[in-house]
């Protein structure tokens, strides 16, 4: 446990709040001023988060940069934040994508700019809060708070036809899961321990949960996270929300919000309910594989570009889940790196779809054809991102999928066999889509005069591309940051250590031991 000397996390977390307050006082008519302010705040957030990455000690599997301030004493709830190998990259992904999103919506959003920018910063705060919270109550608050800006982004700036439907569906689905989780949290934190505690490290180390209870609690958390991921039977909100949301909304939704679900699994389900995780691993792997194949098959028949990308998320996140629940080091590191990859490549795909939409105001694949002749620069970017999404060696997607498949193979070779078909299907739907949109003759006269990418748009895509190639060629620095945490997690999950923990806690109880960490 390393406490922070400089409260980097708090600064990064509350900078958006300061930005929001600043935006509230700025005049509504000065649209450019509003956009610049948001951009500067989000860039500042990114630069302040850099020390988190560089000063992060990769040898230490525990939480770092910890800040701990009591908040609601009666319940032993505190403002308790910190990061470890699981959250560091997701935090970086969030702060990295936010300035990009602001630039990406520069032209797109002309209506209610002030509110849009406030929502964006609000969303950033919510997402960061979820990743850095070490207190379950704090986590839950951020988890729910983040619904409000996303709901507004979809409902107010979405495509007019079905945005309200999509926004409400998104809200109700997510809320459904999280309310069950709330019950689980209360049971876990108020009823099970001898003394109420919401601190996650405390729950990791000092609380013993019997197998039956573990199973029930596992399910309570599972539904919340599975809806967010989304896993196969719970995914129906996703295509609607993605399709109706404004470009930036889709980007953040795909890149970061969905990761909150998978992050929840590694942060809570695996370490808190290890035996239940093993018990349910088979079920979850099967659901993940169904998701991979089903998502891919549905993608093939889509006529709308954005919906296609949305469904591809179901398939990609199936890989993440399969990796996590393979419960070995390759699987989990593959799952973790695949989260980042999906964030980058699907984020980029949504940006690209948004760019075409801005030009043509349609997303139907049949409307396009031969764009590569008209927009060569665009075609290059699109190609690289497409290949990354398919998992071409040398680009980021390959690393993640390969590791996941290795992990799955070790767990059960059948997993790898079935999941492997997902990679093939991905090639089918992505390349076929790419061919129909970009190659061939320009059949539609409206496409003849399309402008190629502007410098702003290249600036939006270039940083993402940089990381797509970097992770693809040399993933080691990223994997290294996570490795100790993953090993630590696996130690918690495997059978011998569960037994050992049981013993230690029993001994502690017999000695009348008091819980330690909350006294600070």
């Amino acid at each position, binding site marked *: 446990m390393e406490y922070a000397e400089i409260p980097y996390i708090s600064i990064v977390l509350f900078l958006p709040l300061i930005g929001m307050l600043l935006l509230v006082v700025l005049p509504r008519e000065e649209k450019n001023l509003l956009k610049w302010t948001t951009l500067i705040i989000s860039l500042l957030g990114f630069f302040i988060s850099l020390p988190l990455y560089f000063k992060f000690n990769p040898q230490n599997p525990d939480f770092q940069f910890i800040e701990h301030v009591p*908040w*609601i*004493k*009666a*319940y032993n709830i505190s403002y308790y934040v910190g990061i470890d190998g699981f959250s560091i990259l997701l935090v970086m992904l969030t702060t990295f994508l936010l300035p990009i999103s602001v630039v990406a919506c520069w032209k797109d959003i002309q209506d209610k700019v002030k*509110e849009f920018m406030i929502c964006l910063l609000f969303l950033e705060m919510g997402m960061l809060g979820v990743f850095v919270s070490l207190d379950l109550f704090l986590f*839950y*608050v951020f988890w*729910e*708070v983040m*619904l*409000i800006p996303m*709901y*507004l982004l979809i*409902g*107010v700036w979405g495509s007019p036809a079905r*945005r*309200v439907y999509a*926004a*409400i569906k998104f*809200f*109700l689905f997510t*809320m*459904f899961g999280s*309310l*069950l989780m*709330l*019950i689980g949290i*209360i*049971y876990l934190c*108020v*009823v099970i321990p001898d003394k109420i505690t919401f601190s996650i490290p405390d729950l990791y180390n000092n609380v013993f949960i019997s197998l039956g209870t573990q199973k029930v609690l596992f399910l309570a958390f599972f539904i919340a996270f599975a809806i967010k991921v989304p896993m196969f039977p719970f995914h129906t909100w996703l295509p609607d929300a993605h399709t109706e949301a404004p470009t930036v909304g889709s980007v953040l939704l795909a890149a970061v919000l969905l990761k909150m679900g998978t992050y929840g699994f590694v942060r809570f389900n695996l370490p808190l309910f290890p035996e239940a995780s093993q018990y349910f691993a088979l079920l979850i792997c099967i659901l993940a594989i169904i998701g991979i194949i089903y998502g891919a098959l549905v993608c093939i028949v889509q006529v709308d570009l954005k919906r296609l990308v949305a469904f591809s998320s179901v398939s990609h996140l199936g890989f993440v889940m399969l990796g996590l629940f393979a419960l070995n080091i390759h699987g989990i590191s593959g799952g973790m790196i695949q989260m980042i990859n999906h964030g980058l490549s699907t984020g980029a795909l949504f940006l690209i779809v948004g760019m075409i939409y801005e030009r043509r105001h349609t997303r139907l694949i049949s409307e396009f054809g031969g764009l590569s002749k008209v927009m060569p620069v665009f075609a290059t970017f699109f190609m690289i991102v497409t290949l990354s999404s398919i998992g071409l060696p040398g680009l980021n997607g390959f690393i993640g999928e390969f590791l996941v498949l290795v992990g799955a193979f070790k767990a059960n070779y059948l997993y790898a066999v079935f999941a492997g078909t997902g990679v093939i299907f991905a090639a089918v739907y992505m390349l076929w889509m790419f061919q129909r949109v970009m190659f061939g003759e320009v059949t539609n006269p409206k496409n003849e005069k399309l402008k190629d990418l502007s410098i702003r748009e290249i600036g939006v895509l270039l940083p993402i591309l940089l990381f797509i190639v970097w992770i693809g060629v040399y993933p080691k620095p990223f994997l290294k940051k996570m490795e100790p945490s993953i090993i630590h997690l696996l130690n918690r999950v495997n059978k011998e250590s569960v037994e050992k923990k049981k013993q230690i806690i029993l001994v502690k109880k017999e000695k009348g031991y008091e819980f330690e960490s909350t006294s600070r």
Partner: protein
Amino acid sequence: MNLNLPPVNLGSIGAEIILAIAASIILISGVFFPKAKKEIFGIMGLFGIVFAFIYNFYYWGKPAQIVFSGMLIVDKLGIFISSVFLLAAFITILLSFSYLKIEKINHFEYYVLIILSVIGMILMVKSQDLIMLFLGLETLSLSIYVLAGFLRDDPKSNEASLKYFLLGAFSSAFFLYGIALTYGACGTIKLDLIAEQIAQAGLLHDKFMLMGLSLLLVGFAFKVALVPFHMWVPDVYEGAPIPITAFMSVAPKAAGFVALLRVVVFALSEMQMEWGPIFWVLSVLTMTIGNIIAISQTSIIRMLAYSSIAHAGYILIGLTAANEIGNAGVLYYLLAYTFMNLGAFGVVIVIAEKGKGRTNIEDYSGMAGSYPLLAVTMAIFMFSLAGIPPFAGFFGKFYVFSGAIKAGYIWLAIIGVFNSLISVYFYLRVTVMMYMKDPAQEFGPVNFAPGIIIALILTVFFTLEMGIVPSCYIEIAKESIMLLM
């Protein structure tokens, strides 16, 4: 001759005395200065309330004592909840100024009646004796019957008043009969003696005691509008002047719940096996039916009326739990609900036109475009009522649910959270209208007045503060409940 006067401790009812004096001054000066601006009487009322509040504040640390020959008890619970009534009355009067003017019902009696009803509520929650409780209840109810019919020329308001009166009288009869039966079984109507009697004389399965208990519960259930005793709520809420609806939805409800808390948790705690299951069922029915009917409402006032029924169900979860967390949760919830519901009604008053015009949910479409700040305010109240962090409503729900889970009522908590989910739908609809729909026609001017603005600022502030830094409110709620446990 030796005359033995029981010791009279006027200090213990200081707040009530201050309010009574304020009410009398308004009444007398209202008669003598018929041409005076009516707002002055309202401001006098506000001063009375502020003084009473300060008095309460000063009285907070004193040890609990039973006064007036065992009629009243002065403890932190009573002081806490009477401060809630005072806050509610304060905000209601602020909300009323411009509304009364627009509706042309600007009479000074209005303020007098509000203050008198607060006196009734305070006596009700401080009572240590069932008869005293009944007297408080009647003082409160009679004032509110009149207030509900204050829109004299509006038949709906008259209907509301009459309906409320008839059903209220009906429930009072139940309540009195319950007192009589309890007296028959225990030989006393003092709450502390009832508790002793039940423990000593083995009255747990006495049929008179059980009948008395159930009739008392019926009386309370009418007052706090639990399903199936809720029929009067929508019509009365819709007919009454809007500030009174706001007031009715928070203060008398809080009074009813705290009196219920005193009776069941304090006096009848031994009989938890009997009333626990009844509360369980009532709470589930109340939440579910309130929420489901609220979905289909088109008028925002009726929607809020059904939502207030549903909230009574959530509060009852805390009572069912009957442990420290649950009961403190009830108090916290009542305070939070006071702010958020009064705030929501405040926005309704701002938007409403004369004669209950523009009170349909659809009339809110496009409000965010014309009045962004007002829309944000309303959105905060809606999210808070729906129980979404970081607003007060979320913590209230969290509090009562954790009480229920701690007490082992896990299914009750699960039903509770699913009800919150249902409620999210209709609260969100208001935000959908405000933000995501275009207005049917130009959004006309709204009725901003200084009183309402102050009230909205207060309610927004507390809705946020109780959600973000709830610590000190939790401490107060916990201390208030301490003596009962």
